[in-house]
Structures are given as structure tokens and as C-alpha cells.
């Protein structure tokens, strides 16, 4: 058993860390303030292969393992949580289900485009009345000739305004409950596809989140992903992987909070010495660091489990996401506290981290849902 990154993973970490410092960090505050999508950063990332980390090489990706992938998400998120989640959704929620459930034609058609970052990927399952209860979704898909006609609204869709390839879920058989939901690969230029309103959010502002509106949207039947009725299963399995990405994002945010806190407490002087000399601060730093270490190991554990190939990693993914997101929230609370009044101002990075962290406890399955999954796996 080896608890260390291998040489190649270390090289990847180094490259992404340098990229994040040079290209992501300098503009993170501005993008957040302007609520501007990091399109230029994504272009640069695609040239380095960072938008196709797990896509197999035969389709133009790097074909890397999940651990390498999670390293990428963490390092990017450490400098900009918004860019981090866009990367995670693109790889885990858009590319992965096509890799896993797509036909050869679908893989050949869509994976190279996603790998090269020519189009951004998104995942549209959530609806105004179907969040944690995904099975209650109301979007319908009716087969008419060689097209599915899809009607419905999706909400809280990451990269909604700019995505070109979107995995969507709709009900094909109303009587069958969860087993009546099907998955589709949709392109934004399909007739009837509309981007709805863009949300003004508390945090991750550079990641644009919107509604998607399907009005008699025409989707060719070749774009059915998997078989009719497979949709719910595909959604859950995809979210398992996505959760590990969000966990990695949360670890990145927490790490940033720790980095800032260490730097600040060494510099800030009160009562004649740096506040790093005070036990209250030291204990906060110690607690933050310990939780982050644990969270990171849970992420690596889930990633490792996923790569073993048994297909059974829901519990590990849920544990990672639950713990990492709660760690991130705790870390940013402590970080702002350590910064005192200055941490409350927009001049300091921790203010943005504080706003960014909260969403990690909510999307891709709330902490409550994660607890359900973990308990469910133990109390069957």
C-alpha cells in the first residue's frame, strides 16, 4: 500500500499548480467581481489537456487515472473555485457518462470535442421541483419518428449559459417512476433549446449558473444515452464520480483558506508580536490542517476505489464529499476569523473563499443526501 503520489502524478501536480498560480490566481478576484466566465483560462487549459484528463487517448484525451484528475481539480480550485467546478463538471459530469454509457458513434462524435475544449460540457438533471428528489423530475421526452421531443425546465445548471454539449435527463415513461427516466446528449444549437435566466449567486460567481428551457426541443434518437429507462441509474452513477470532483474542489478551497491564514498570522502583529504566536490562532491552524489532510485522503481513497473498476464507490465518494465540504466551510469560517476585520473586506482573498465554500455542501447532492447514501450502504 502506497500513500504517496507516483512520479507522474507529482509532475502533473507541479504543472497544474504552476499554471494555477500564473494564469488562474491573478484574475480570480476580478472574474468573481464581474461574474465573468473564465473562457480564456479554459482555452489555455484545453491546450494543456486539462479538459480531457480522463477521456481515453483514442478520443483525444489524456486517459489518466482518477487520482491524477482529482489533483487537477484541487489545484485549480485552490486558486479559483469557479474554474475548478467548471473543470469538474466538464470532465466528470459531461464527458464521463458518454465514456461509460455512450455508443461508439456517440463517443467518436462528442468526446474529442470535449477533450479539446471546443465545446464546454454540462449536466442538466435538477429542476425547480426536483433537487434532492431527482426522481420527481417532470421534463418529458416523447419519441416522434426519429426524434425525441423534449419539454421542460432545468435549473441551477453549471456552465448553462455557455455549454455546447449537455447531458440531460427526461421522463420517457411516466408510469415507471424512476425507471422511466432516460438520459440524452443534447447540443445547444438544437431546435427548442434555450438558456434561461442566469442566477446571481452568493459565491462561485465566475461559474455561470442558469436555467435551461426546452420548448419542443428536437433531439435525434441517436442521442439517447444508454437505453430508455437507464437515465436515473446513469444520473446517480455519474454524480458519484462528480462528487469526488466536488470533494477535491472543497479541499482546494480549504487549502487556500489555510495558506492565507498561515501567511496572515505570521505577518499580522498585535500586542507586540505576530498573532501566529498566540495559542488560539495556533489551534485553529492545527485543526484546519488536520481536517484538510483527512479530507484529501478521503478524496484519494474514493478516486482509488473508482479506479479499481468494481463500480462500487458510492459510499467512499459520499464520505469524501460530505467531509471535504464540511471541512471547507469550517476552514473558511476560521480563516475569516483569523483575519479579523480585514477578512471581512473584499481586499482579502478569504472573503471570496468564504462565499465560495458554502455551495460545496449543497450541489451534486446535499450533505443530507450524502449521509443518506452512506447510511444506506451500511444499514442495508
Amino acid at each position: 500500500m502506497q500513500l504517496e503520489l507516483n512520479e507522474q502524478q507529482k509532475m502533473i501536480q507541479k504543472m497544474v499548480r504552476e499554471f494555477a498560480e500564473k494564469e488562474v490566481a491573478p484574475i480570480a478576484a476580478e472574474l468573481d467581481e464581474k461574474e465573468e466566465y473564465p473562457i480564456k483560462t479554459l482555452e489555455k487549459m484545453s491546450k494543456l489537456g486539462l479538459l480531457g484528463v480522463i477521456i481515453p487517448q483514442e478520443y483525444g484525451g489524456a486517459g489518466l487515472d482518477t487520482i491524477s484528475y482529482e489533483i487537477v481539480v484541487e489545484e485549480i480550485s485552490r486558486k479559483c473555485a469557479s474554474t475548478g467546478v467548471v473543470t469538474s463538471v466538464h470532465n466528470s459530469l459531461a464527458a464521463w457518462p458518454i465514456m461509460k454509457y455512450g455508443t461508439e458513434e456517440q463517443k467518436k462524435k462528442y468526446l474529442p470535442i470535449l477533450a479539446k475544449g471546443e465545446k464546454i460540457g454540462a449536466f442538466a438533471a435538477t429542476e425547480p421541483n426536483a433537487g434532492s428528489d431527482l426522481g420527481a423530475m417532470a421534463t418529458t421526452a416523447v419519441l416522434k419518428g426519429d426524434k425525441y421531443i423534449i419539454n421542460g425546465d432545468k435549473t441551477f445548471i453549471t456552465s448553462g449559459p455557455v455549454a455546447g454539449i449537455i447531458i440531460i435527463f427526461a421522463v420517457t415513461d411516466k408510469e415507471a417512476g424512476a425507471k422511466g427516466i432516460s438520459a440524452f446528449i443534447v447540443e445547444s444549437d438544437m431546435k427548442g433549446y434555450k438558456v434561461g435566466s442566469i442566477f446571481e449567486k452568493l459565491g462561485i460567481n465566475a461559474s455561470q449558473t442558469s436555467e435551461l428551457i426546452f420548448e419542443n426541443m428536437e433531439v435525434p434518437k441517436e442521442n439517447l444515452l444508454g437505453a430508455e429507462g437507464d437515465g436515473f441509474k446513469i444520473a446517480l452513477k455519474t454524480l458519484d464520480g462528480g462528487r469526488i470532483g466536488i470533494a477535491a474542489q472543497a479541499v482546494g478551497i480549504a487549502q487556500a483558506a489555510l495558506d492565507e491564514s498561515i501567511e496572515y498570522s505570521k505577518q499580522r502583529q498585535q500586542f507586540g508580536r505576530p498573532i501566529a504566536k498566540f495559542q488560539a490562532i495556533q489551534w485553529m491552524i492545527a485543526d484546519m490542517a488536520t481536517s484538510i489532510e483527512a479530507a484529501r485522503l478521503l478524496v484519494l481513497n474514493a478516486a482509488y476505489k473508482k479506479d479499481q473498476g468494481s463500480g462500487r464507490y458510492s459510499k467512499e465518494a459520499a464520505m469524501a464529499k460530505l467531509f471535504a465540504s464540511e471541512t471547507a466551510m469550517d476552514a473558511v469560517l476560521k480563516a475569516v476569523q483569523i483575519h479579523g476585520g480585514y477578512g471581512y473586506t473584499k481586499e482579502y482573498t478569504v472573503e471570496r473563499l468564504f462565499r465560495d465554500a458554502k455551495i460545496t455542501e449543497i450541489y451534486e447532492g446535499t450533505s443530507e443526501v450524502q449521509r443518506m447514501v452512506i447510511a444506506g450502504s451500511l444499514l442495508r
Partner: protein
Amino acid sequence: MNIIVCAKQVVEISEMKIDSSTNKPILSGLDKKVNDIDKNAIEEAIKIKDKTGGKITVIMVGEPDVKERMKELLAMGADEGILVNSPGDLDYSQLTTLLSGAIKKIGDYSIILCGEASTDMFSGQVGPRLAGMLDISQITYAQKIDATKDNVTGERNLGDTVVTLESSYPVLITVTKEINEPRLPSLMQILASASKPILEWSVDDLDVTLEQKVLTTDLQGISMDRKNEIYKDDSDDSIQKLVDNLAKDGVLR
């Protein structure tokens, strides 16, 4: 065209602290990296190779851990690495003798590229010293290079003038940081670097004699003690405090 790049592993100087009891810089425990300007040299080598074709060989002198740095340069685009195992602390005569021995063992080459200097010592001696040893022409402090199959033109930035030199091969060129922006290797390039060869040569493999010409007898730390009085805002009050302090320090005439 065969291009040789000489690179060096250096410590991360921004992390360096001075031991207050011995007044010596603490050299252990510092992160190690490839000398920044050597990456500019590799980047330039890749640009030349893209234009004229050929092979890029990186030579580094050091201990086995230097192989990690070598892999980074292979990932950037070098084709092959040669590590000369260093028998300990070397002066410039010994270092350059090893490099020259390795280059003679490699045999055929058109261009040797080096960074203008390494960030730790900032001497800039190795490049032109090597050119003297090999008795080949040199273009130092190049801010721009244009290489063809037969010759190379280099622009030297000398501060108040820019001198352009044209040279046939072989030639040694040292580059400045301004010459280019070193690329980050893509994921694919990192993967590909695993199969690129790294040869390891010992002093005995090279036909050389090492003689120490200069001995370092002491290393004294210089610590910069600054007041570090930082005003957290630009209020009129803070500005006034600063001006009063400057007056007190006697820098306002």
C-alpha cells in the same frame, strides 16, 4: 540538427533563511527546481527544433535526485537526458570540464544553449567558459535567436546597444529571460516523458581530469532587517504617519 542544453538544479532562494546563531544561510530543506533561465534555454531549443528538425539533449551535473528535474525538461520537449554524476562540490573549472567531457562524448552537435546565469550564484561563467574550453564561437546574453540549417543569428542586449552576431556551427549561445516564455508541459507531454531516455555517466566514463582552481572558504549570511511597519489602509492618517516617519528617518531633505 543536434542541440545540447546545459541545465542546473538550484534551490528555491525565496524560501531561504539565515541561521541567526551561525549567521549562515540555511541550505538544507529548501525546495529544488530547474534554474529558471535554463527553462528559457530549453524553450528556445524546442523552437529551433520545430523549425529545423533535430534532437535536443539535456545535460545536467549533480546527484541522482537531479533526475526529477531532468524529467521536467523532457516533458517540456527535450528528447534525451544525460546526468553526469557529480563527485561533490565542484568549482567552475571542474564543472565545465565535466560538461565539456560529456559534450565530447556525445559527439556531433550544432548549438549548445545555456541560460545566461543560474539564479543561485548568478555568475554567468559556465556558458562562455565552456565555449572557451571547446574553442567554439559564443553569443552571450541573447534576447533573440534565429537559427537556420547553416547558421544562426543572435541579438545581444548590452544595455545601451544591441549587437547582432551571425555564426556558423558549432556555436554556444546563452539566453536571457526575455527571449521567450517557457511552456508548461501538457498532460500528454508529461506522459510521453516517461519513455524518454536518461543516461547516467560517471566521471570515469568521461575522459577528463578534474582540478580545483577556486575554493570557497566561507559563506556569510546577510540578513535584511526591515522595520516592517505596514499601514493596512491608505487613509490620510496612515499617509501622514508614513510621512512623519520618513522625516524622522532623515530622508526628507
